[in-house]
């Protein structure tokens, strides 16, 4: 990655125009031409620096529901509980974290009712409480990570 790549990654994390010639518009803002920008993005994708280039969706906008949930799992039951939780297809991400609440996972489902039902099922299967912490507000992050 050179300086030009870094500028491209930084600029495009903030957004990309939706218009007839979006690469030309974005390239102008970066002081380069359309062909160069397209070639650079293709190379960054091939290198794996960019995992996606396109629309970023909001699950709720599609009628889906998302929440963050946490559990305090006794160390000696950790593997067993991971298996029980991850067996649910509604579980999108599951991370261990260093806290008394040591298991944090995201549930993504088609609707709210399915979230509640999945949480009840996990509580019944594990005998452990699941804390449900849905998003109440989102604060806009501009540039995500500086390259």
């Amino acid at each position: 990655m050179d300086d030009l790549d870094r500028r491209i990654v930084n600029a495009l994390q903030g957004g990309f125009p939706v218009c007839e010639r979006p690469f030309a518009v974005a390239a102008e803002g970066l002081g380069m031409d359309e062909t160069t920008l397209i070639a650079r993005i293709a190379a960054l994708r091939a290198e794996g620096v960019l995992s996606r280039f396109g629309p970023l969706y909001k699950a709720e906008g599609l009628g889906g529901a998302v929440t963050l949930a946490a559990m305090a799992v006794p160390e000696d039951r950790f593997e067993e509980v991971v298996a029980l939780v991850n067996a649910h297809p509604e579980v999108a991400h599951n991370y261990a974290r260093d806290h008394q609440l040591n298991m944090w996972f995201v549930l993504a489902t088609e609707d709210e009712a399915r979230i509640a039902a999945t949480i009840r099922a996990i509580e019944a299967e594990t005998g452990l409480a699941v804390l449900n912490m849905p998003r109440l507000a989102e604060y806009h992050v501009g540039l995500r990570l500086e390259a």
Partner: protein
Amino acid sequence: MDVMAQERALLAALADGLPLEPRPFAALGERLGMTEAEVLEALRTLGERGVVRRFGVVVRHHELGYRANAMVVWDVPDDRVDATGRTLATAPGVTLCYRRPRRPPDWPYNLFCMIHGRDREAVLCAVERAAELAGLEDMPRAVLFSGRRFKQRGAVFGPTPSGEAAWTISTAAS
């Protein structure tokens, strides 16, 4: 094709990303039997409805050299949390910023963010800078570094030609 079917087809066609050519929306339309103008109109509608948050890139943190991250949380008085959250979201290293409910007694925190850094020390430095910027120095806080990851997938919205999930939730802690 009705509007819903058209939107679904469009989202599925975008699953692998935008075509890398000068008129990408015309190229998408060609695949779907839509004109460029129809594709642009459909995407604007999806944007207004909040289905599509924005267009842009998702970077692989690790490839960019960001190898450590933590969920950092604070307990902020309710009447200050929105203003504080808006400022916190602009701090370097912060990739997500949300208000969520407290769950006392186990969980007293209501302001959540993800902070990335080159290593753990860089994350802790970024936490201090973010706290200073947002006036959070004296608020109760916890830093939960990410440990093992047991599962990561996108939520599924219809099949795609490549067989991958047609859309993904772009955050590690939605």
